[in-house]
């Protein structure tokens, strides 16, 4: 029962994270790989503040503000570089933040991580945490569905094909991107807090390459502006490797087998979808 609840929690957490990624990366065609930075900074902010006796909800709010500032920073970089360079910058930022976390021992406890992160009153047990997570997931998915129905959702789809033509219609594409990035920051901060309250421990490896590949695989698989496709992709990518647990594989292999599956899946998806995927054009 506990295994079932915990995987369900992890599933909804992943689903929440993938929602803004589906919007920005898959539907909008902006190859933003800096999202683990948002997750890392948000997680460490919550963990450090909670360990300093801040109220968990206040800590989460401060983390949201900090992550929004990071999102705005990435937005300004997006305005100044090409889509390809933006992807590289995102990846470099992730590695830089990871190195900073490991080396800033006094603040982050370095490689040992931060244990014993307290849960807030509203989510002090796994069932109540699951309830909050599902509720938030529903809010995020409804919001995403609504977004796809609006003129901004249509404009984002059009931007993936031809940014210049969108501007010629009198639409400011940058405003839409900024809005999505800020929303992404809020969603990531909230879901990161939910994750911390579940595991009550934060390791410096959190939101690393494994996390990036998992979320990116799901987001790219859900390459059409459909919330149902996101849910199906998350079920597929999240639960298929979960089945490996029931095979008698040595634990040393089992740990890496997920990453191998996700990476192979990502390669297959990019080969098959990339012409549709990274088509954002700035040419006239």
């Amino acid at each position, binding site marked *: 029962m506990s295994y079932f609840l915990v995987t369900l929690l992890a599933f909804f957490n992943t689903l929440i994270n993938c929602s803004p990624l589906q919007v920005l990366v898959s539907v909008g065609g902006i190859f933003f790989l800096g999202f683990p930075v948002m997750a890392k900074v948000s997680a460490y902010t919550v963990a450090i503040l909670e360990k300093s006796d801040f109220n968990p909800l206040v800590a989460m709010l401060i983390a949201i503000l900090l992550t929004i500032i990071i999102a705005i920073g990435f937005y300004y970089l997006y305005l100044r570089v090409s889509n390809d360079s933006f992807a590289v910058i995102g990846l470099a930022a992730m590695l830089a933040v990871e190195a900073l976390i490991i080396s800033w021992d006094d603040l982050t406890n370095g490689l040992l991580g931060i244990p014993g992160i307290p849960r807030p009153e509203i989510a002090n047990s796994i069932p109540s945490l699951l309830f909050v997570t599902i509720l938030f997931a529903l809010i995020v998915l409804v919001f995403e569905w609504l977004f796809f*129905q*609006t*003129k*901004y959702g*249509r*404009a984002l*789809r*059009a931007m*993936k*094909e*031809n940014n*210049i*033509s969108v*501007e*010629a*219609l*009198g*639409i*400011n*594409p940058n405003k839409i991107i900024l809005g999505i990035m800020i929303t992404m920051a809020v969603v990531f901060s909230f879901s990161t807090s939910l994750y911390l309250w579940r595991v009550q421990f934060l390791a410096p490896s959190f939101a690393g390459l494994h996390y990036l590949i998992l979320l990116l695989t799901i987001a790219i698989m859900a390459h059409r502006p459909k919330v149902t496709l996101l849910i199906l992709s998350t079920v597929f990518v999240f639960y298929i490797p979960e089945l490996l647990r029931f095979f008698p594989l040595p634990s040393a292999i089992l740990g890496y087998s997920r990453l191998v599956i996700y990476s192979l899946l990502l390669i297959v998806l990019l080969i098959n979808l990339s012409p*549709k995927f990274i088509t954002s054009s700035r040419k*006239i």
Partner: protein
Amino acid sequence: MLKLENIHVSYGKTTILHDISLDILPGEIVGIIGPNGCGKTTLLNAVSGFIKNSSGSLLFNENDITGFSAHHRAVEGIGRSFQQAGVFKEMTVEENLMLAIEHKEKYPWWWRFSRKMRNQADRQICDLLSDVNLLGHKKSVAGVLSGGQLRLLELLRLRISGGKLLLIDEPTAGVAPVMRQELASLIKSLMEDESRSIIIVEHDLKFLFSLVDRVIVLVDGEKYIEGDPESIKKDKRLQEVYFGTES
């Protein structure tokens, strides 16, 4: 309507447009011609704001729009179509037009949930598509349309969002000859609708001369000849531009 004063455009150290001054009157159709690389599309890009002019100024309806971004100029009323049709091919024909309507009319974000507004937009889309015999393709993905149909769709979008000045770049590129008459009628109707001004860049001189009130010939980024279509046709310098001089 549009006044260009001493416009210079450069890419790095290469100057593409030299000291271009131009006046476009309300309701006027002006054709821009010239050999490849003479700066025709660059001129449209400079007017629509997709590239910045290194010096000179642009006045639109007596407002200085020199520092305006491309989307800001579009909002002010400068519409633009592109050499390679700027239609969104992965979206349906209906969605292509919807995008123009909802932004032009400043519909609220929730408008798709209002039956009244949905019907109103749907009627508008059906009327526009009927005019160019594309109603049967309303729900089709735009990518399945032929080159000519894509042009018609782009011009319909321009009709919706275009504003008072339309910049049309090579409308006949990739269009079968049988569709050119339909394109010409649509371009004329764009002008007659709201007394819009139009600047067309075009290589098909016969097509262009049948539409425009005035022709400007650009050579090496400079205004070389200017006049009405009849006088330009007779001007020997035009033949020199296209066929060179007898040596």
